């Protein structure tokens, strides 16, 4: 596949890049190629970020009598997501100061007592003072890495809210909606940043599957078994449009590639008709942009769909000594591949072991059911 990609790069540069609406891999790969060829891409991005980070009205002479409405969203986000803070403090402070949630609301969302959350916020502010953090845009060379932290915090808020089960007992502040709202504001503020657009697209394309993710009993429904007519088509359309625009104008980054993977799933009428070679190619690119064991694990699933379970299992074996060793997701992927290879007993063992180690109730129930099916 990698060689196929390289070959494709060469063809495309010779013949020009073909246009095809479903060809996310093609678009992403071509974009990536363009980025690599352009030696000055990074410089351009920095320059653009600097321009984006400057309030629009600061680029123009203010009208003599007008007091410009000041949008301090960026300054606030950079402050709340200061590197001196840990992720849980960054998340709490962002929701409080930027999202406008009350402390009891945030406490309820994270299922901790109000006092605990109040202390966390107090402590976070104290930390910021000690670190000499300032309510101002960070100096230019720090801006891009700091924006990466901001995006990660928004991503964490989204994931926290992406609850598998709902219902009166688990009534929470809708963190998913908060994350989308904040990312949307950030995108309005930095419209030219491809990764901000990519993250917003990723959230929309993921959230679009929300209605189909849980069954009548609140149980987890895996992607392959979801009723795709229940996917939110307008969220998919919005996410797709954002991603298309970002990929044609900005340097490609990990959030855009993840959004492209979500878009491939969104386009597939059924699990069987999913364009797995494209998913695999996108994971290969993602692995080069942002390598990590979780990405490799996902690539193993795609590899198993394209080249058969044995190839997937070989790749999973390479991860067995890494940081994901003993992680329930790794065991679940191995179980899935073993099952597809026809090794029912071994698969059932892996499903059970994955269930034992799973940290979430809906996932555990799902994994136990998977094991029970094979017995």
């Amino acid at each position: 596949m990698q060689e196929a990609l390289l070959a494709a790069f060469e063809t495309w540069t010779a013949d020009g890049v073909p246009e095809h609406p479903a060809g996310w891999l093609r678009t992403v790969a071509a974009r990536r190629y363009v980025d690599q060829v352009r030696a000055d891409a990074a410089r351009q991005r920095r320059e653009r970020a600097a321009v984006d980070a400057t309030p629009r009205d600061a680029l123009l002479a203010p009208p003599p009598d007008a007091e410009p409405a000041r949008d301090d969203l960026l300054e606030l986000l950079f402050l709340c997501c200061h590197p001196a803070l840990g992720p849980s403090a960054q998340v709490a402070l962002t929701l409080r100061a930027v999202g406008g949630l009350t402390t009891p609301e945030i406490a309820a969302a994270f299922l901790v007592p109000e006092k605990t959350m109040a202390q966390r916020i107090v402590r976070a502010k104290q930390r910021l003072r000690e670190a000499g953090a300032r309510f101002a845009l960070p100096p230019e060379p720090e801006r891009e890495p700091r924006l990466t932290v901001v995006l990660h915090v928004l991503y964490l808020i989204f994931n926290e809210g992406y609850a598998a089960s709902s219902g009166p007992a688990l009534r929470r502040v809708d963190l998913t909606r908060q994350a989308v709202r904040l990312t949307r504001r950030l995108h309005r503020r930095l419209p030219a940043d491809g990764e901000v657009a990519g993250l917003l697209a990723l959230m929309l394309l993921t959230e679009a599957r929300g209605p189909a993710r849980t069954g009548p009993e609140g149980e987890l429904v895996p992607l392959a078994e979801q009723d795709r007519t229940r996917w939110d088509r307008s969220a998919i359309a919005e996410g797709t449009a954002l991603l298309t625009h970002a990929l044609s104008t900005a340097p490609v980054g990990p959030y855009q590639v993840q959004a492209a993977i979500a878009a491939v799933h969104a386009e597939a009428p059924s699990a069987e008709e999913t364009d797995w070679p494209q998913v695999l190619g996108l994971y290969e690119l993602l692995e080069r942009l942002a390598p990590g064991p979780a990405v490799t694990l996902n690539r193993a699933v795609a590899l198993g769909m394209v080249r058969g379970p044995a190839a997937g299992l070989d790749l999973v074996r390479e991860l067995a000594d890494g940081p994901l060793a003993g992680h329930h997701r790794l065991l679940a992927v191995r179980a899935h591949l073993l099952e597809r290879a026809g090794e029912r007993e071994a698969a059932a063992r892996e499903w059970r072991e994955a269930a034992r180690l799973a940290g979430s109730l809906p996932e555990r129930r799902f994994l136990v059911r998977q094991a029970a099916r094979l017995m």
Partner: protein
Amino acid sequence: MKYLMLIYGNEEIWNSLPAGDLTTLIGEVDAFNEALRASGELVESQGLVSRARSVRMVGDAPVVTDGPYLEAKEYVGSYFVVDVDSEERALEIARSYPALRFGSGRSGGGLEVWPLMTGTGGDL
């Protein structure tokens, strides 16, 4: 991520502590709890009365008996729950628990760290 910390006590160890040590230790545990509260990591903390009962099915009826800790030297004396950024942080907190040092060289007086299950799950 939330973690349940089970604190094991040992009657023999406690009974053998000089009164001064016990006062110092109680002060240290109070300071330990206060630090966790101030950092916004302590979810809750409770002491347990060492009078546990166990309920098990015997035949087809649930039967209440003493124990399971009554005869054992070790028992769960208290617990606390923290909400922290990583497992490393949870283990760091566990390692700094003041009463831990009284268990050294003897059996008992340890801490168990249990990750709590969450209500949310990712896509599978």
